[in-house]
């Protein structure tokens, strides 16, 4: 019974350790890159001090990164920029990038439109008024007749 209990205890402790390792492994990448919060850093370091397996993994990650950094940057082919420039000139012939107005021009455009609309309204109402005067003058100058009287009466009702 004692043996069984100690075996059970060991199993529970192993499961707890595995869970802790799983959690720490998720933080190791950020820890290796130095982008981890102070609180999490403390947690990782505490675990690493007790767990050689995770400490080894961290060392492996660091080694892999070091090897990656020894791979030299590929050299740019000397003709690449020239080829790109040639293609861009071709593109320019068939396509010009959309011209975007600067905010100042956009504002000036808006003011101009509002001004044009205002002017239109003013001119419209002035014209309407002038037309009214002309109608009254034409009534006054008209020869008195039954037709004109009918028109004048109708105009008065309006």
């Amino acid at each position, binding site marked *: 019974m004692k043996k069984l209990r100690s075996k059970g205890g060991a199993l529970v402790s192993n499961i707890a350790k595995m869970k802790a390792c799983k959690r720490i492994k998720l933080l190791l990448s950020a820890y290796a890159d130095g982008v981890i919060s102070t609180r999490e850093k403390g947690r990782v370091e505490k675990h690493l001090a007790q767990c050689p397996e995770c400490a080894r993994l961290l060392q492996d990650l660091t080694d892999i990164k070091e090897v*990656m950094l020894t791979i030299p940057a590929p050299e740019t082919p000397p003709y690449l920029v020239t080829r*790109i420039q040639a293609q861009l000139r071709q*593109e320019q012939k068939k396509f010009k*990038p959309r011209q975007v107005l600067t905010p100042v021009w956009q504002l000036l455009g808006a003011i101009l439109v509002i001004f044009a609309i205002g002017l239109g309204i003013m001119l419209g109402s002035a014209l309407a008024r002038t037309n009214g005067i002309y109608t009254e003058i034409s009534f006054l100058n008209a020869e008195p007749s039954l037709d004109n009287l009918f028109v004048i009466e109708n105009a008065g009702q309006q």
Partner: protein
Amino acid sequence: MTEQQVNEQDLLRQAKAGNLSAFESLVVKHSPGLYSFIYRLVNNQTDAEELTQQTWVKAWQNISRFQERSSFKTWLFRIGINLTLNYKTRRRPVEKLAESMTIESKHLPEEEYLRKRRQELVRCVLQELTAEQRTALILSVYEQLSYKEIAQIMGKSVRAVDSLLVRAKAKLHELLLPAKKRGLI
């Protein structure tokens, strides 16, 4: 703001107004970085050249839409990544290590030979990652960008980038374990 940044902003303003010469100055400045980044993603010179060229054409066509919320480099790399992820690269079988080593390199001094072997091995293994994992890892290791910047370029959250990097490194570790046991790494 440095003189270089001011100069770049000036070039951008002119390029947005349709000045191709100004845009070409940006091409000269950023092409080596863009090419080497794309090369590392696709591990093939022809594809890398083609994609670099396509990226610049796309950038020129859309330069007026660039709102300068991020740096020009970030915007450019984002276009490059999108094109690379959508590019149907002819899937080349991962070279076996012995095949990838040229006869010339086998005559190198032992230390140099081992270093080259290690580099070839890592280069091949990197191609076994998913395109997104590889992108995040290359941006982190070679471009030395922060998780936030990587998230911006890849259009993902910082948490998603962290998760991509965790999985990428775990897979690399798993794939390189046999080489490590043989003392290659």
